[in-house]
């Protein structure tokens, strides 16, 4: 599903964010990526949807070498990856429902099918009742659930979440992680970066530890 081999990333100015990263994820696997802030978790996750490109080594997602992907091919790669961010990146000029509909507007779904999918995704995160609300009216945990609904509405095979619980209370965080586990259980490959080791241990999934840009 995802495989990194000898991946390095440095930013202009000499800062080395990742060094010699090699690992792979089997389809349907769920993995936590831990490490202190600045350890390179975000950089590593950004290589998967080609938000960043590796300086050396290769990143292969769904059989595609992401590092060598043409600019025009990147959108199609991203449609198969559900992305969840620490700052949900919701659009506050439209309703919860319209936020979830956004990824469907790019692709060729008939309008009825798109509406059905958006409602199904909102139902899965328990927010169907709030579809008319503006995201700004929702709590942080609820906003993150909207972001998850938006990430899964295209039914991607891979979910990538960068610190999805960072700003949430323990109860909301647990609820978010339960949703990811539920997607893992129906066969979706899930990668979650977090600095909260306590949370990770509770789920007993595979853990990749990053320390100063290396896998420990």
């Amino acid at each position, binding site marked *: 599903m995802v495989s990194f081999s000898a991946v390095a990333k440095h930013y202009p100015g000499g800062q080395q964010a990742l060094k010699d990263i090699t690992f792979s994820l089997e389809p349907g696997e769920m993995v936590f990526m831990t490490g202190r802030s600045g350890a390179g978790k975000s950089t590593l996750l950004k290589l998967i949807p080609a938000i*960043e490109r590796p300086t050396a080594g290769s990143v292969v997602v769904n059989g595609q070498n992401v590092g060598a992907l043409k600019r*025009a091919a990147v*959108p*199609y790669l991203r*449609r198969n990856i559900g992305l969840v961010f620490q700052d949900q*990146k919701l*659009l506050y000029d439209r309703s919860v429902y319209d936020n979830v509909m956004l990824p469907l507007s*790019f692709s*060729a779904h008939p309008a009825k099918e798109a509406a059905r999918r958006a409602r199904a995704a909102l139902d899965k995160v328990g927010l169907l009742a709030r579809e008319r609300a503006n995201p700004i009216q929702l709590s942080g945990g609820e906003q993150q659930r909207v972001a998850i609904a938006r990430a899964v509405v295209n039914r991607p095979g891979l979910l990538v979440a960068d610190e999805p619980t960072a700003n949430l209370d323990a109860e909301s965080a647990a609820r978010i992680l339960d949703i990811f586990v539920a997607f893992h259980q129906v066969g979706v490959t899930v990668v979650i970066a977090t600095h909260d080791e306590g949370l990770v241990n509770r789920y007993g999934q595979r853990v990749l530890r990053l320390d100063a840009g290396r896998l420990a």
Partner: protein
Amino acid sequence: MRAWLRHHREALWAGLRRLSYLNAVVVGIALALPTGGYAVLESLRPAGARLALEPRISLFLEPELRRSDAEALGKRLSADPRVETVRFVPREDALKEMSAIQGLSEVIAALGRNPLPDAFVVTTRQDIAAELGKLPGVAYVQADAVWARRLAAAAAVVELGLSLLTVLLGAALVAVTFNTIRLQILTRRDEIEVSKLLGATDAFIGRPFYYLGFLQGIVGGVVALALVAVALALLNREVATLAESYGSNFRVGFLPTLEALGALLGAGILGWMGARLSVRRHLRAIEPS
């Protein structure tokens, strides 16, 4: 195919919603100048062409010349193979024509007698004015073709000026659209960034902006045509008075339908070009990080 149509329909609506009517008015005012100038020029063209195509030579006869000598001269002119038509204008008729012009009748009445000579109006395609002037009994020759040519030359200068103006204001339209789209892209930065993260293609994100540029050009063109129509209506009131004093019913006509549609389409295409330049430059600069 249906999805493609739907994407375009949605982009068209998005473009319409983003349309700033104030910008369209600015575009319209810029376009009104060359459009109006073109309408005036097109109206003048038939008159100018007629003058240039049928060069006329007026032969004014000596005032004391007898009518019988004039008739003999007429026969001689008619016999000349280079002359196409000959029309005799008796001095009485010339006087009547002149008296009809406002203000002149009093002057003529004060003179007490007819100061005008008999005349021939000859049309010819050849430059024989000087030769005709040497005929016996001819006092003065006026070749109308000369000022017709001058008029045509002046029209050409105006036309060139108008073309330059059109190019200049067309460039202004592109620039205005470029800037409109730039501002639109900047205010929608978040939406564009999120859309890129979720897998929207550049074509998809750019499409509403292309429509916006095109529509802004079209609406600007409509504003320009409306301004020209109003301006011509006002102008024609004055032109009518002036033309009637010359015994003409000349009016400055509106642009022919085809030209008007062409102006609209041209404005739309220029708007689209501005949008394209702006999208290429500014949309690429927004990349999620």
